[in-house]
């Protein structure tokens, strides 16, 4: 072994204390980087795997594609895999819709179609049914049985004459609750049968395909490419359907990656600051030694190498320890997280299953590689300055070395009378840089802690839940538009046959425990002038009664308009969300809207009376108007939401009755404050646990730094302290002085953490508020976390002072004086 390496190795052993602390900091840094990467990437992978397991895997589907175009698409260069589905007709039944469909093998795979038992159709007359279908048709059957079914074939201009045919049941698929509820089922025939029944010219396929090279594309690019191909084959945009869930889960999310990078950079910075500070601080007593090495002939380069190799040897020992610990712990952390998130989310349950069975590998060689590189980088950067300091020492200077302070200051004002406190202050002032570095390192973690604590405390689940839902219980219509399969769901239809009738509302009022019922009405349409990405913007208007007048006015942030003025029908109150999308909109502007009135439309121009910022609970709409204004324009039943206040004592029974009432119509959905609260509490709990766990580990790195600074500040002054004791300082006074130093560190750290932390935290709150993050709106100072932080830091300091001074007192006074002589 070369002399330099040997010396470095000897130094590792000699500076046990410092190197142990350094090792801890390195191991913790390793742990954090590794776990952030593993868990972060693991979450993406698990989500992806569970989406793969749960959703169809095609990227794009074209509807109504002719046989000719289908063939052309099958050989298209940009398409990697293509599957076909053809709907051939409907089974004749009194009340249920049973669609006969056929898929080729690729189609079955891309659709993730699964059977409860049996196989997919192999022979021409094979059929896959579900128990629900058989029940609807009132026939019995098991695998292999032949059943005779009456049906109508889809033809160019509607449905053909009734026919009948006999099929052999080859498989059963599941019939879901949704199927039963909507009375809509599918059976699957063979492709041959479908082709035989429908002449080539009439065939219309649904073509599902995956694009080639999609791994490198974003969601938007995939969609755009899909539309392009569609255009080439004359598929109108309305018939191009992208597989949203699948695409979103697979081909995003750049912001997640960015978040991970930010976290890792933070960890690396904390690591650098700590390791650098440990080396910097403990370099002071070593300077003489390096001076001697220089005196006997070491070159600058050799000294630099010695410091570097010592640090790297420690890294080489600590890094594997960190990797080992984190490898074992990350699977456990992952499991806990997913178990926590699983709850009732079917996708997350799939994810939990995948992780449990070890189907998603969490440990990847590249995560090890990145972690190792990041940690080596951290060590190397941390060592750069200490290396320079050691190399710069001149042998002559080293022998007389008194400390690292520059010889800038020549005089000190000083005090007439000295006390222990003044003595301590003088010493802290001498090591301004060292004191500063320690306080800033420790404080930085504290600031981060306070910011996170502020956000978490502002995100009070009770408040948030209240902002999501205004009353105790809500019964609301569920409508959507543009669904050809469910045209009845369009609000234009529902308002003509609205289940929220006066009679229904009276029924709700009569439920025992219901104290108040407020009705919100709704009207929609388009704003021709405004469009985004080629789509004309929707005009959603919620109608509110006079009891909301105050809420509306309070929320106004630009301009001012009263409820009475709005009632005149010329002005409208616009949500601040609109300004987010269309910043050019201002108070006083005119907006022409085309509003839906059942099947008709009406044009109406409003002046923007004011812009207001409102919570989701008000309805989350773009515009608000008095109910009377909507009623005047549209005679249909516009009731959309019932906000129900329930007596606390009777909640359980009332909720059940209300649910039962709502269940009478498939168009109604319900929600309660309690449900909303639970949801948020669950979300926030996980977020809090994760955030605080991360901060505690980061804090751990900071504490290594504190221990080192305290130890060094005492050990490097061994002789000085011994000398002051020789001229009369008692042990008690010495301990008091050390405690005072500890207190100054504590106060400094706390001033930085709590003081600056609170300010930055408030800034973060303002940011979160404008961005509507976690629905935050009111500032709550994080009292409990702040007190906890103060207690923990103070306790640690006291503990450290006692530990270090007890250790120091083991040395006899003579040893202290003799040190370094």
């Amino acid at each position, binding site marked *: 072994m070369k002399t330099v390496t040997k010396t470095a190795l000897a130094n590792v052993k000699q500076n046990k204390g410092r190197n142990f602390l350094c090792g801890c900091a390195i191991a913790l840094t390793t742990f954090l980087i590794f776990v952030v990467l593993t868990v972060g990437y693991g979450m993406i992978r698990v989500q992806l795997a569970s989406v793969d397991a749960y959703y169809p895997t095609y990227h794009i589907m074209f509807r109504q594609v002719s046989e000719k175009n289908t063939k052309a698409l099958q050989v298209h260069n940009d398409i990697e895999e293509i599957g076909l589905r053809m709907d051939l007709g409907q089974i004749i039944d009194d009340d249920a819709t049973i669609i006969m469909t056929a898929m080729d093998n690729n189609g079955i795979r891309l659709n993730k179609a699964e059977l409860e038992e049996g196989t997919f159709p192999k022979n021409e007359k094979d059929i896959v049914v579900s128990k629900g279908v058989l029940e609807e048709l009132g026939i019995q059957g098991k695998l292999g049985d032949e059943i005779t079914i009456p049906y109508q074939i889809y033809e160019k201009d509607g449905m053909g004459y009734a026919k009948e045919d006999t099929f052999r049941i080859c498989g059963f698929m599941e019939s879901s609750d949704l199927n039963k509820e909507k009375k809509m089922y599918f059976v699957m025939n063979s492709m041959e049968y479908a082709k035989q029944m429908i002449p080539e010219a009439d065939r219309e396929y649904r073509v599902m395909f995956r694009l080639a090279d999609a791994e490198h594309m974003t969601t938007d690019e995939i969609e755009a490419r899909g539309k392009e191909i569609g255009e080439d084959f004359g598929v109108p945009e309305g018939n191009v359907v992208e597989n949203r869930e699948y695409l979103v889960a697979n081909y995003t999310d750049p912001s997640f990656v960015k978040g991970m990078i930010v976290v890792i950079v933070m960890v690396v910075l904390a690591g650098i600051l700590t390791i650098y500070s440990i080396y910097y601080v403990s370099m002071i007593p070593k300077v003489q030694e390096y001076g001697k090495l220089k005196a006997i002939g070491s070159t600058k380069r050799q000294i630099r190498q010695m410091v570097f190799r010592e640090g790297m040897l420690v890294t080489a020992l600590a890094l594997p320890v960190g990797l080992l610990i984190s490898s074992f712990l990350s699977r456990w952390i992952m499991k806990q997280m997913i178990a926590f998130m699983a709850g009732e989310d079917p996708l997350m349950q799939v994810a939990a299953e995948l992780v449990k069975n070890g189907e998603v590998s969490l440990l990847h060689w590249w995560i090890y590689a990145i972690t190792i590189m990041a940690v080596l980088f951290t060590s190397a950067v941390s060592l750069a300055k200490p290396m320079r300091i050691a190399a710069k020492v001149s042998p002559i200077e080293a022998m007389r070395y008194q400390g690292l302070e520059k010889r800038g200051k020549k005089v000190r004002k000083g005090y007439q*009378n*000295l006390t222990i406190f*003044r003595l301590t202050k003088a010493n802290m002032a001498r090591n301004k840089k060292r004191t500063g570095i320690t306080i800033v390192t420790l404080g930085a973690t504290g600031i981060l802690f306070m910011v996170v604590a502020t956000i978490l405390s502002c995100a009070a689940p009770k408040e948030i839940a209240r902002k999501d839902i205004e009353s105790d219980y809500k019964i609301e219509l569920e409508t959507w538009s543009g669904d050809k399969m469910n045209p009845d769901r369009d609000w234009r239809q529902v308002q003509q046959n609205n289940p929220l009738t006066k009679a229904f509302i009276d029924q709700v009022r009569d439920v025992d425990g219901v104290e108040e019922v407020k009705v919100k009405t709704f009207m929609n349409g388009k704003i021709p002038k405004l469009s985004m990405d080629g789509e004309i913007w929707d005009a959603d208007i919620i109608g509110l009664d006079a009891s909301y007048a105050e809420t509306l006015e309070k929320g106004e942030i630009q301009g001012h308009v009263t409820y009475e003025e709005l009632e005149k029908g010329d002005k409208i109150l616009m949500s601040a969300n609109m300004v987010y999308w269309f910043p050019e909109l201002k108070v006083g502007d005119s907006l022409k809207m085309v509003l839906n009135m059942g099947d008709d439309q009406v044009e109406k121009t409003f002046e923007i009376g004011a812009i207001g910022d409102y919570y989701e609970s008000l309805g989350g709409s773009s515009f608000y108007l008095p109910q009377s204004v909507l009623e005047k324009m549209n005679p249909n039943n516009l009731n959309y939401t019932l906000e129900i206040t329930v007596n606390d004592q009777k909640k359980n029974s009332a909720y059940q009755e209300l649910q039962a009432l709502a269940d009478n119509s498939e168009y109604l959905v319900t929600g309660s404050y309690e449900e909303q609260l639970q949801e948020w509490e669950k979300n926030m709990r996980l977020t809090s646990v994760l955030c605080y766990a991360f901060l505690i580990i980061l804090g751990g790195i900071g504490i290594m730094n504190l221990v080192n600074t305290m130890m060094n500040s005492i050990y490097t002054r061994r002789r*000085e302290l011994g000398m002051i004791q020789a*001229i*009369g300082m008692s042990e008690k006074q010495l301990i008091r002085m050390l405690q005072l130093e500890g207190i100054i560190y504590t106060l400094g750290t706390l001033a930085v953490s709590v003081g600056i932390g609170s300010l930055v935290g408030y800034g973060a709150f303002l940011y979160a508020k404008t961005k509507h993050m976690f629905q935050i709106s009111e500032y709550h100072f994080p009292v409990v976390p702040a007190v906890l932080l103060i207690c923990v830091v103070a306790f640690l300091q006291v503990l450290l002072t006692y530990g270090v001074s007890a250790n120091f007192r083991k040395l*006899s006074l*003579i040893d202290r004086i003799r040190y370094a002589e």
Partner: protein
Amino acid sequence: MKAILETRDLVKYYGKGDNLVKAIDHTDLIIEPGEFTAIVGRSGSGKSTLLHMLGGLDRPDSGKVLIEGRDIFELKDEKLAVFRRRKIGFIFQSYNLVPSLNVWENIVLPIGLDGKKVDTEYVMDIICRIGMEDKLKSLPNTLSGGQQQRVAIARALASRPAIILADEPTGNLDSKTELEVISMLKSCVSEYGQTLVMITHDETIAQMADRMIVIEDGKVVRA
């Protein structure tokens, strides 16, 4: 005259077996008030250990050290520290000033540790004697070796101790400064009526003392 400083059968050994070092081997000494005593001996003869014992910095294996007739090792550590700062002034070879304090603060440090008010007139008198009156605000690292040692002497005198113990105070100084410092120390001590015990291996300096004690292998061979 009654002895101000006395040792009775003082013993301090270091190590064991073959490595046993008899630093102080049954030593008896008597020093009278106002005396300037030089302790002379070769390196490793036990001079420094003896001085540390006299000052109560280290505890002996057996025997007693009496200061004004009182056995200092009967005192607990805490009391001993207080006793030390009131009765004894130390001067070390390597000055040992506190680098973060200026000249004035270094000098009044023992008074501050004792919780007493500084007798400014008295301390200024000492400072004028050592010729540092225009350097009061200077930090130690701006002073020369001789200047630093003069500050250390002033520090030892400032709390008016009865006894000054000096461990080779001029070991780091050139011969001209050395003589200056010693004459100054001697005149101060006689002016303020203090007792001075000084370790040295310099014959010239030893000659300036009222009395010379020679130590060899932990024993007094000539008093």
